[in-house]
């Protein structure tokens, strides 16, 4: 009896203290606290941005939390965090592959409810494709923070030596590789290196090849992978290895491996993200002053680059959404896009920044980047909420085709069949 009383008293006290703490948390609300969670690239200049913002908005305090900048890992953070309906991070940085999943799950706030109509005009100033992939069912769920694009790096010195202009078509690129490789006679010198292991990079690289022939992965919600145009694109991609234009190592190399290979002067052309450029602007680099960048080459039509990058949206489980939206607007404005570009070579998500005279003067890299980075093609990330599952099948079959374990035709047929099966199962 005594023990029962003691326990009751204990529980009672516990509840009282708990309620008091809870009520305290709910108390006065003049100050808004906003937490932004984003990977390391999105953290460039964030301290300065936050300070400047808080000086302008004294009632809002912002705090930054860094998470992994590896897409798989940040996605894992979000699936666990949002499944638990955790609202502690107000603003989250997402890759193109994440946005639709999270919007459809009800994890993201429909931003069009937060902004007034005048913001529509502002949105037009962003890269069109980058905004498109954040739009689900006509509503905007995220604003592009920075863009990322696969760029065609080339060895300026080698091309000049053989009297070539940077290529604009795959035929030209192939001929240049053959001529230079024959002339240099260096067994370590690879022609064109890109990424085709079983990672999302293989899909991105396929999109590059696809852009030149005009193929699509999805159309009107249907998988249209198994088409003559895609067969042409994938056959060409696989054929590059068979013809010796690309080394076999493309089937295992990730972007970092390739950037090392190119940095050692062992490749003529490389398809890679902008991060690699910083390494080559270092006078210590073996290829310092020898690197050029151009836009993705094409075939019948000009090529475009696979679009990456990070967009930021607002957590639906959070409070203080207005404050969060103010900061989203602020960090994605023209000035901070420009500052990030000047000081870190992060690609702006607003087209006009590329032509900014101050940027071109202060960061010479952008004389190179501006040409390559604006022609973008998206993966069908915004057309389905099952993109990550579908992409896994493409990664598997494209990689298998690259390894010669199946023909490009089989790869497309099998991938399409398995992707359709996934969509059917999910529709149940």
């Amino acid at each position: 009896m005594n023990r029962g009383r003691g326990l009751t008293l204990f529980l009672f006290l516990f509840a009282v203290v708990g309620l008091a703490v809870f009520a305290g948390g709910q108390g006065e609300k003049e100050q808004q606290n906003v937490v932004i969670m984003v990977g390391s690239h999105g953290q460039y200049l964030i301290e300065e941005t936050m300070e400047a913002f808080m000086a302008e908005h004294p009632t809002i305090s912002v705090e930054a939390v860094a998470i992994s900048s590896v897409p798989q890992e940040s996605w894992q953070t979000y699936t666990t965090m949002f499944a638990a309906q955790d609202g502690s991070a107000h603003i989250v940085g997402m890759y193109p592959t994440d946005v639709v999943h999270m919007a459809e799950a009800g994890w993201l706030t429909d931003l069009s409810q937060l902004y007034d109509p005048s913001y529509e005009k502002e949105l037009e100033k962003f890269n069109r494709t980058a905004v498109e992939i954040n739009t689900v069912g006509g509503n905007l769920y995220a604003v592009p923070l920075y863009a990322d694009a696969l760029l065609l790096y080339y060895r300026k010195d080698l091309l000049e030596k053989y009297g070539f202009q940077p290529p604009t078509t795959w035929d030209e690129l192939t001929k240049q590789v053959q001529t230079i490789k024959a002339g240099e006679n260096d067994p370590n010198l690879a022609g064109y290196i890109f990424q085709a292991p079983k990672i999302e990079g293989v899909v991105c690289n396929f999109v590059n090849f696809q852009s030149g022939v005009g193929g699509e992965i999805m159309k009107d919600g249907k998988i249209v992978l198994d088409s003559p145009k895609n067969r042409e694109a994938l056959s060409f991609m696989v054929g590059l290895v068979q013809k010796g234009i690309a080394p076999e190592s493309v089937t295992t190399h990730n972007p970092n491996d390739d950037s090392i290979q190119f940095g050692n002067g062992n490749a003529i052309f490389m398809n890679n993200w902008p991060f690699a450029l910083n390494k080559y602007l270092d006078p210590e680099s073996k290829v310092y002053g020898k690197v050029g960048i151009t836009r993705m080459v094409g075939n019948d039509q000009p090529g475009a680059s696979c679009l990456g990058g990070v967009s930021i949206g607002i957590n639906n489980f959070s409070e203080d959404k207005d404050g969060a939206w103010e900061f989203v607007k602020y960090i994605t404005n023209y000035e901070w896009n420009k500052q990030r570009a000047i000081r870190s070579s992060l690609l702006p998500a607003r087209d006009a920044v590329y032509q900014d005279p101050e940027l071109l003067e202060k960061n010479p890299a952008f004389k190179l980047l501006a040409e390559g980075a604006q022609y973008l093609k998206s993966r069908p990330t915004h057309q389905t909420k099952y993109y990550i599952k579908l992409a896994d099948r493409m990664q598997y079959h494209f990689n298998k085709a690259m390894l010669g374990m199946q023909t490009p035709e089989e790869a497309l047929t099998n991938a399409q069949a398995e992707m359709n099966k996934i969509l059917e199962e999910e529709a149940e």
Partner: protein
Amino acid sequence: MKSGSLAKIPDRTFGLLLTIPAFLFLIAVMIFPLIRVINMSFFDYRVFEGGKMIYVGLKNFREAFADARFLNAVLNTLQFTIVTVGFQFIIGLFIALILDKQFRGRSLIRMAVLLPWALPTVINSLLFRWMFDGQFGLFNDILIRIGIVSRPVNWLASPLGATFAIYFTQIWKVSSLVGLILLAGLQSIPQTIYESATVDGAGELRKFFKLTLPLLRPAIIVVLIFRSLVALQVFDVIYAMTKGGPADATESVVYNIYMQTFLFTEFGYGSAMSLLLSVLILLFGFMYIRGFYRQESTMGEGV
């Protein structure tokens, strides 16, 4: 300083009271998650539909047995466990026998031998991924220099090569640890037994098979159980070296569970696969212990 009421509590009850915090902790970090996993494995947990849970009975388990990718991963994992633990044991025993001898600088060598194990697996794996690289890898360079191959081998791009690379990395890393555990076992064997065997005229080989191995059995069992249980859960070396590729040639069960659970957000299916893996691991442990005690008892009868 004992207060009156506390002193009245019998020791046994007081002891139980003191274990409550630890027990609560255990419930929070072990028992609750376990029950949750068992529970979730019977549901289709739809994260993207507001976390809706739909009861599906044994569907997740049936699906696992029909999932070619999962079965492939089970085979890969079993093969990985048998081959790597086997080689780790043989090499580790070799290391232990050498380190058991008296020689100058022995303690220094004993410490140095542990280095591969002290490095985090991910670092090891990344180093080896570069050494096995098809374009600028160290192993290719050596093979070409001594004339075994004429052009670089793209190790990680073929199922066989990638499997070999992963096994090699894992065996290199863990053999020394196995060696040290076996060494501890070796040193607990009294020298007098060997001396009397020598007096009886036993040769070195005979002493090894008739004395060292049987007396080392407890250490061997510990090593085999622990290494097998860890090997069955292999993830990091695969994640860092091949991501399961080329195609699905090196996917392990845990890698598969990771993909299904955290990338595809199939929490229910992932839970079911985790439970199946637990059963497999328990089976392994059971087999070892049964084998150990049976041999122990037959040995007892023989003496």
